[in-house]
């Protein structure tokens, strides 16, 4: 029997969120592993009119064979239990073999509700999964926010999985290389949408407006039956304070830890961040001392970053901190201790006192700019 796998897909600025792309990759591996001809249904909440032209094509590119649009009266915006109830009913109607979501706040929360409603286990933060038959799955998943990997066996009539948002390809391990070809797609699907995929309200050309833009991706509407309890918790969204660059998306992050010495020591790091078009991030020690606010904390219980450069100054590199910066493309450490744990994660290191090195670096950059 060809399996049906459901994947909760979150949209970001009218495009498939990166975390959901990873979830789709793992979901697809579950469809393709045992037999061909299975269904990977991407489940999207929200009005169909809000879907950008590119989304359907994007979904096809990431392996979805069906788009399921879930909507119900009273279901506008995010409502975790209602979303879970929808997935529960959809999974039952389709005899789904698995329900997969990204391990984002929404994805993790919705799958936990689904687990609670069905009494099924939820395997959180998976990096790969493979069906081994008879309701058994072989998984690799994060522990300690990715500082460790766990190989696990899941036994359940329907596998409920969340996929680590920052899972690196190398982590996939022996169970499956699910993430290896996450971005490889069918070229023709991508070609089906001319112009800029994902631009909301862009003029459709060729294939027609809206979600019809990707030929071959069937669209199914699903209306769940919800009761009052499912709708008790509903989110009202409000915009952020605006301005300021986000730590999570900054291209350059200048990190400061205990070695900065006190709240006044951050001026030089702020100056350097300003020069490089980046932001300052800090370790947990710094926020728990009250030197800097928690929103600047990089780590397992703070913000996870993925900049091109993470310059970690006076940060020893506790597991808690490394879990938040493992997605950085390049890590450069400035530390007095050549044996600090950060040295096993950094690509380059300067051995020395950041309170001397950073001002000298700032001066060098200023001089270079002046010369230019």
């Amino acid at each position, binding site marked *: 029997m060809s399996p049906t796998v459901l994947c909760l897909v979150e949209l970001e600025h009218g495009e498939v969120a990166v975390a959901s792309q990873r979830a789709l990759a793992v979901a697809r591996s579950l469809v393709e592993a045992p037999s061909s001809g299975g269904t990977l249904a991407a489940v999207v909440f929200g009005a169909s009119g809000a879907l950008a032209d590119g989304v359907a094509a994007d979904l096809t590119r990431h392996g979805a064979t069906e788009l399921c649009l879930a909507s119900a009266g009273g279901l506008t915006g995010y409502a975790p239990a209602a979303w879970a109830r929808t997935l529960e009913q959809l999974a039952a109607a389709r005899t789904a073999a698995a329900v997969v979501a990204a391990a984002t706040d929404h994805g993790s929360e919705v799958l936990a509700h689904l687990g609670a409603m069905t009494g099924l286990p939820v395997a959180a933060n998976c990096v790969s999964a493979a069906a081994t038959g008879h309701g058994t799955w072989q998984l690799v998943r994060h522990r300690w926010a990715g500082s460790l990997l766990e190989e696990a066996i899941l036994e359940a009539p329907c596998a409920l999985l969340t996929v680590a948002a920052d899972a690196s390809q190398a982590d996939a391990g022996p169970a499956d290389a699910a993430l290896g070809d996450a971005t490889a797609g069918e070229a023709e699907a991508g070609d089906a949408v001319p112009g800029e995929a994902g631009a909301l309200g862009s003029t459709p050309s060729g294939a027609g407006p809206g979600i019809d833009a990707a030929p071959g991706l069937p669209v199914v509407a699903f209306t769940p039956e919800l009761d009052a309890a499912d709708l008790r918790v509903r989110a009202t969204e409000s915009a952020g304070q605006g301005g300021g660059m986000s730590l999570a998306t900054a291209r350059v992050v200048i990190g400061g830890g205990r070695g900065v010495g006190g709240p006044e020591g951050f001026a030089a790091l702020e100056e350097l961040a300003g020069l490089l078009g980046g932001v300052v991030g800090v370790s947990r020690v710094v926020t728990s001392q009250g030197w800097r606010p928690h929103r600047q904390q990089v780590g397992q219980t703070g913000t996870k970053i993925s900049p091109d450069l993470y310059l970690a100054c006076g940060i020893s590199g506790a597991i808690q901190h490394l879990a938040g910066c493992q997605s950085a493309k390049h890590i450069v450490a400035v530390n007095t201790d050549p044996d600090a744990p950060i040295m*096993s*994660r950094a690509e380059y290191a300067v051995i020395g006192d950041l309170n001397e090195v950073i001002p000298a670096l700032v001066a060098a*950059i200023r001089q270079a700019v002046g010369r230019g």
Partner: protein
Amino acid sequence: MDILVCVKRVPMVGGRIVLTAGGQDVDTRMSGFTVSPHEECAVEEAVQITERAGGAVTVLTLGPPEAADQLRDMLALGAHRGVLLETDGREWGPVATAAAIAKAVGELGAAAFPLILVGNEAADTGGYQVGIRVAHALGRPCVTGIKRLDVAGDMLRAWREYGGGEEEFEVALPAVVGVKEGINLPRYPSLPGRLRAKRAETAVLKPAWQADGLRKVALRVPAGSAQRARVLGHGTEAVPELMRVLGEIGVLSPAGVAGGDGAMT
């Protein structure tokens, strides 16, 4: 208002995680134990609420007999009572853990705790689900990821960060709330707090372990986490080499460099 806070005993891992032979567990012979950071903030939040509005804070944990240490740590932060769901040291999955907590809450009197706080996810397993499962077992609404909480009367408003902005929730008590670090800055335990913790009563219940459908085979350290950084130099003498590396990475010529206009490349 009486508040129940659930915490979990986890290894204090510090800078390196060492596994036991066979890769079944984190080797804790050289490290201590603590509660997950989110949970410490949950206890602080509960203590602050009762300081304002009255009531008592009960801290509950499921773990081996030694987890009583973590209860005492939380009592020293201002919690009033402890409940230990004592296990034989085996790892419990989230389904069984939530069932045991819900059962214990029922035995302690479900109506006794209009508000149950949990840490959003445990530091070790990161399952993001025990609080939600407890909420379902008790028929309560649940909000998670909460960084700001306002309890007034029998309603609570809660906020979490989302997509550069915030999501706001409003739910009626009784409810379950998963909080995140950053909601407050936990206090340090005071000496009177430590003395009070020694005297505080701790109830002990012994739930039966159950299989969870999800079975650990082994743990391993990810590949590539044992590299060595290339040392560019010592002190300020390393700055020219550091400049070269930053140029190579391509961060020396962003718009952020005042008037730079790519002058660095």
